[in-house]
């Protein structure tokens, strides 16, 4: 029995649920109950079984043991739509919206109002009423394509409500949002909670779990290892429960940057994105770049490595360099690890070897590609970066997020760059792998290389960097280092609030 829960309530619950894929059991006897008006956070490392639970509750998978209960009775949803009909709606990370249709058309997709002729007015009116209920200013006529990501998420939530959802299952809803937008999401969740909706909330961000969740279930290796009510667990104990050990040294100790400069940038501008940015990166330094999404951080990085047309002066080891494309950047010892692992980093349908060597193929044979050398490089990368692949010949898309990120890091390091720009080093990866990647980054700087880390996670930037630059609206808003490197100071600079830190 789940302590403090009531099997007889109307909302869905898992009772002693197990799930096997072939011979491998990935969920072991899980009990989980959702309560109306309660946010239930489900946390765990990648592969702990969170998504399997979401899929079982959402009707996309059947349990191999135990029951899904609804209204106290065991039910078997044949499909996602059947679960939706019962009021259980999953909001996936990738939105299910038709980008060229209007908001109203998306809300009523598949169950349009009207007979032979669609009743556009009625659909618009109901959509407007729903959006009103969500306090959202989105116009029902707007096309999804024209909406920002958080607005699209709002449409998804509205769509769920329009289907009279009693239960919302949200998969990493904040992963696509910026700091400010997350605030709006919290407000919406508070509103839904007040209306009596039961919410299952999966997230990697422990700070938001601590903030939002009324009840927390921690999964590890397919079993529930901890249950807690609001306030019973702080972030550290959540992380410890997830990985099963104390994370006393989550961030590696800071390094000793030398006084020599590795990279000097002055007057760097990218039309419409970045204006007149200048800074110096020292050898052996980890330099953080913080700022809101849209503040020009990624664009700055892409401009530095020639992926975007940029003007300004760049000096590497004191020598001016001209970087017009990524190849020039490699030649100058710069490399860039993209924030968009799945769409710009790795070929998900290609093998590990092909991915690893893609950017540096000219090192593997003049005419005929030397697959033996490529394999050797993969062996080395697998060891150096602890890439855990069940099979060597698998495609990159089948790796877990953390292992994909390690592969991407290995790929980025293959040209042997001295200056590495890493954009969102740990987006969507689990806690254990995160600390591994932090250690890799620290190692790079200990070897005398210089690293720029761009991150939206404030604790990450602070924990990892020797110094942090803060960007706002395409400009450098300031820098913090040493004791002034606090969340508060960075947020002030990023938001443009006065009272800047020195």
């Amino acid at each position, binding site marked *: 029995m789940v302590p403090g829960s009531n099997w007889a309530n109307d909302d869905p619950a898992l009772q002693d649920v197990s799930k096997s894929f072939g011979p491998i059991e990935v969920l072991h006897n899980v009990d989980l109950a959702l309560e109306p008006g309660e946010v239930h956070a489900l946390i765990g490392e990648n592969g702990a079984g969170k998504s399997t639970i979401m899929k079982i509750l959402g009707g996309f998978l059947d349990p191999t043991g135990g029951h899904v209960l609804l209204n106290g009775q065991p039910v078997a949803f044949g499909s996602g739509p059947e679960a939706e009909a019962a009021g259980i709606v999953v909001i996936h990370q990738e939105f299910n919206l038709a980008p060229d249709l209007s908001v109203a058309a998306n809300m009523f997709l598949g169950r349009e109002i009207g007979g032979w002729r669609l009743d556009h007015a009625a659909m618009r009116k109901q959509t407007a009423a729903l959006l009103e209920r969500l306090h959202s200013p989105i116009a029902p006529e707007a096309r999804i394509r024209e909406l920002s990501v958080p607005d699209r998420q709002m449409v998804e939530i509205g769509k769920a409500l329009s289907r009279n959802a009693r239960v919302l299952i949200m998969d990493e809803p904040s992963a696509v949002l910026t700091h400010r937008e997350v605030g709006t999401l919290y407000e919406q969740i508070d509103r839904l909670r007040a209306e009596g909706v039961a919410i299952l909330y999966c997230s990697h961000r422990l700070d938001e779990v601590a903030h939002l969740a009324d009840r927390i279930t921690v999964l590890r290796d397919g079993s529930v290892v901890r249950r807690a009510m609001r306030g019973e667990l702080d972030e550290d104990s959540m992380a410890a429960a997830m990985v099963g050990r104390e994370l006393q040294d989550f961030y590696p100790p800071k390094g000793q940057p030398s006084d020599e400069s590795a990279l000097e940038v002055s007057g760097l501008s990218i039309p419409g994105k970045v204006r007149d940015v200048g800074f110096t990166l020292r050898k052996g330094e980890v330099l953080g770049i913080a700022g809101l999404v849209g503040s020009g951080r990624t664009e700055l990085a892409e401009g530095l490595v020639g992926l975007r047309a940029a003007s300004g002066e760049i000096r590497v080891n004191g020598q001016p360099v001209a970087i017009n494309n990524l190849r020039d950047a490699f030649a100058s010892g710069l490399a*860039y690890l993209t924030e968009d692992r799945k769409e*710009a*980093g790795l*070929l998900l349908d290609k093998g590990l070897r*092909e991915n690893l060597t*893609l950017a540096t193929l000219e090192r593997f044979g003049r005419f*005929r*590609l030397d*697959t033996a050398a490529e394999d050797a490089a993969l062996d080395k990368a697998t060891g150096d970066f602890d890439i855990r692949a069940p099979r060597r*010949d698998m495609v990159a898309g089948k790796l877990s997020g953390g292992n994909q990120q390690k592969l991407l890091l290995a790929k980025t390091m293959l040209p042997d760059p001295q200056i590495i720009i890493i954009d969102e080093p740990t987006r969507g990866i689990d806690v254990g792998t995160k600390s591994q990647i932090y250690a890799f980054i620290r190692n790079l700087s200990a070897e005398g290389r210089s690293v720029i880390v761009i991150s939206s996670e404030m604790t990450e930037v602070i924990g990892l960097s020797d110094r942090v630059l803060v960007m706002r609206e395409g400009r450098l808003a300031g820098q913090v280092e040493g004791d002034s490197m606090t969340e508060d100071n960075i947020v002030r600079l990023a938001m443009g609030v006065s009272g800047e830190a020195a």
Partner: protein
Amino acid sequence: MSKPDLHTLGPLVALIALIVLGALLNPAFLAPGNITNVLARSAFIGLIAVGMTFVITAGGLDLSVGSMAAFLAGIAIIAMNAALPGMGENWGTILVGMGVAVLGGLVAGYLNGALITKARIEPFIVTLGTMGIFRSLVTWLADGGTLSLDYGLRTLYRPVYYGGIGWITWPIITFALVAFAGEWIMQHSRFGRHVEAIGSNDRVARYSAIDVNRIRLMTYMLLGLLVGVATVLYVPRLGSASGSTGVLWELEAIAAVIIGGTALKGGTGRVWGTVVGVLILSLIDNILNLADLVSPYLNGAIQGVIIVLAVILQREKRTAEER
């Protein structure tokens, strides 16, 4: 790595089945004369289809190749006829024609590729446009009729199609060489790897320091070059070109690529598969002509069924992978 899967085996099994069927239906099927005939006819589409494999693998498409072949044949014939009075009836004149066809192919491929990569227009739209342009130009050059190569030159040029080493004629040799080279380039060269990467995800390719536009442009130029080579081998067959030369070649080439297991969305190129695809299409045609089981007029219908079947098999493979 090179373990054969259903994807590559399927078309091969179909090809062998067709050969067995053909041999059973008509003993003349395996006669050297017939084999030469089938292979030589396959060579034109085959050369183009090998180039098409690269274009499609990089995520592109070229509908203009049939019209391009007709246009190149037209200008090659005009060039040779024009050079005849000055240069005389010799191989020099024919080399002029060959040069015009091959260079013309490169230029035409560049035109397609530049419109797609530099002007950023959809490949389908660009090549639909150039398909009409080339077709119309050759019809105009022929004034609605036929452009004929001078009789003397035609006699001289004839062995390029009909001659060869024994029963292995020059088109067959050329096709075989190009197929080997194409397979090698796709599997073992940087260019081939880049082509597959671009078709798989061009953004990843760009972020991996690959000059995406240059590689794309090169695939269209390679295809144009191969259309030129196919034209060089095709002209001596009839010694003429008209508005109806090379009609539907583009679709046959695309069909061969798809039957061979190259995904239309790009990312995976199989030159061997394309060769098998070309042979399957030619064999169906040949068997229908030799055996009076089914009317040869139904050739297109049977080929259509094969194409659809091939794609269904591909999709079943993919969903199996997703599980």
